[in-house]
């Protein structure tokens, strides 16, 4: 057994310089590049970005459930309560998964086993993470969880196909929360749901988070969901965090040209506009990232300096970082 090193002066969750690579067809896909972030108990961090930006990969790295073949964490440290998860043995890791950290997956339709009763699926998770073998107690806990997510306990004996999409997603949440995790990784938990159901589920998640002081990493591409649920926001582009700050800072003073473009591309609910303002071009090929700033080929402020070398994080305000070397020009251009 190796010595467990526990650092005490650390935030609840702290990721440092995480770098994840996939191998595909002999090429290296740079999925996550030098991502660092912190999260405190009871807070919610939103990871925002487009398809393929590497959001889900970050969450999967925390749980260490990346596919074995072809992917590996090339660099970085992930500390949960001061303990480096990447150095734990698989056995120790299994105790963390579901117990301390659990994940809600995007698609509620496929996350449940269709031939098992929903209640039993919750009870199973409870029993896997409890010391005793008292079946009745696990069942009681499962019924409690159903009630918490707003499903009557008598639906314990129902099968997944008898539930609507929103109810299935609530069952998935019940499973994720059954062991009172300290950290919840929610990967697009409401994307597959209708807006009226989404509102219910988001409310539920927020309520449970406040009740149990759970830390949450919310992955989404929907700025509206972020505005509603998150405390801090990290905007991801091509595997790197390009802007990081509190919700107020990001929504009131977006500083990176990509973040600004992202807000500009959403049709406004309150104002009429003839044309939308799309970001020109496409996200870069992750096997072949451009030199320097990865957004530079689509950026109207880009200079030669942007295309030369990797761009560091610049502080625009306390706690508001932005990976852009032309912030001043961007700010002027915006006015």
């Amino acid at each position, binding site marked *: 057994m190796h010595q467990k090193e526990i650092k005490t002066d650390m935030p609840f969750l702290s990721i440092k310089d995480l770098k994840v690579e996939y191998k595909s067809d002999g090429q290296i896909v740079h999925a996550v590049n030098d991502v660092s972030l912190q999260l405190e108990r009871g807070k919610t961090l939103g990871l925002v970005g*487009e*398809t393929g930006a590497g959001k889900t990969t970050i969450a999967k790295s925390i749980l260490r459930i990346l596919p074995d073949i072809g992917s590996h964490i090339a660099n970085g440290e992930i500390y949960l309560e001061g303990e480096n998860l990447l150095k734990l043995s698989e056995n120790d890791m299994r105790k963390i998964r579901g117990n301390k950290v659990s994940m809600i997956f995007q698609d509620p339709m496929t996350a449940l086993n269709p031939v098992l009763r929903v209640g039993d699926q919750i009870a199973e998770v409870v029993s896997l993470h409890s010391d005793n073998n008292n079946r009745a107690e696990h069942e009681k806990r499962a019924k409690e969880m159903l009630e918490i997510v707003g499903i009557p306990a008598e639906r314990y004996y129902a099968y997944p196909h008898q539930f*609507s*999409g929103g109810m299935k997603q609530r069952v998935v949440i019940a499973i994720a929360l059954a062991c009172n995790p300290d950290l919840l990784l929610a990967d697009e938990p409401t994307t597959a749901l*209708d*807006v*009226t*159901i*989404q*509102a*219910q589920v*988001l*409310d539920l998640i927020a309520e449970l988070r406040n009740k149990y002081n759970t830390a949450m990493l919310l992955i989404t*591409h*929907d*700025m*509206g*969901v972020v*505005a*509603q649920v998150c405390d801090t926001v990290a905007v991801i582009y091509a595997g790197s965090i390009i802007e990081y700050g509190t*919700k*107020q800072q990001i*929504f*009131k003073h977006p500083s990176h040209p990509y973040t600004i*473009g*992202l*807000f500009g*591309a*959403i*049709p*406004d*609910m*309150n104002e009429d*506009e*003839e*044309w*939308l*303002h*799309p*970001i020109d071009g*496409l996200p870069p090929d992750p096997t072949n990232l451009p030199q320097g700033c990865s957004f530079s080929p689509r950026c109207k402020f880009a200079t030669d300096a942007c295309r030369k070398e990797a761009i560091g994080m610049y502080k625009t305000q306390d706690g508001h970082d932005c990976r852009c070397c032309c912030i001043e020009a961007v700010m002027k251009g915006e006015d």
Partner: protein
Amino acid sequence: MNPVIEVTNLKKYFTTPRGMLHAVDDVTFTIERGRTLGVVGESGCGKSTLGRTIIHLHESTEGQILLNGKDVTNLKGKDLRQAREKMQIIFQDPYSSLDPRKTIDSTIREPLIVSRHFTKSQIDQKTQELMDLVGIDERLRKAYPHELDGGRRQRVGIARALALEPEFIVCDEPVSALDVSIQAQVLNLLKKLQKEKGLTYMFVTHDMSVVRHISDDICVMYLGQVVEKCSSKELFQNPLHPYTRALLSAIPSTDIDKPNKREILRGEITSPVNPKPGCRFAARCPYANEECLKLQKQEEVSPGHFVRCCRLQEISSSYN
């Protein structure tokens, strides 16, 4: 008044093992030339089926569809083929809507070949024009769909729909599979094409901000029925049906200073199989009472604003 599409009491029922599924139930509307009708609603409300029934991908169960004043409801064979050239569709899923074994060129070319109106050289020229029109690079001509990103694939789908110069296009959630920055590119393209070619759209979506941006008029559907219909402006300023209000309030606002007052809906969604005659929203409606179990009629509450709710008079006073 120059309506391109007039739909009257259109119904589409599917037979299922559990009974009749009322996918589209008694829908009536008209769309003027060059305008866009937005159809919004949640999954399973029949909005896609409605679009597909109008362009005859499904046979209608009852009702009437007029195209440029001509009845096209029960067309068959050659007449149907002629009518279909005027009515096209753009699909939701840019991944499954293109044949994976056909190049971009042959996908766009296909409608021109099938129509038999054109010679080989005309087809070549038209294919080129269409690719330029929707903004696809010449170098992608021989590419296969899997080599393209979602936005470009959707452009190919648009080019295919435009090939026969239709007047009316059903856009079935054309941007919901795309990322916002790409979504804006495609929405702008659709708007540009509408202006240039005087196209008439029926725009099916679940995204309220998109529908607000693109539509002139909006129909809100709930379980096969239109519950509210009015101009886009009116709908967002003065939503009347309780469902529309819940729908609008549920959209997470990006304005962090003004979090919306949400009306959280309780209760389970009614099944569209063999529905009872009453209001289908009643089970989730905070205002429902016994009256709502009776047959609901669509009423014009102000010029051009139609609502299907019997208790509107009573409950609208409680709105602020």
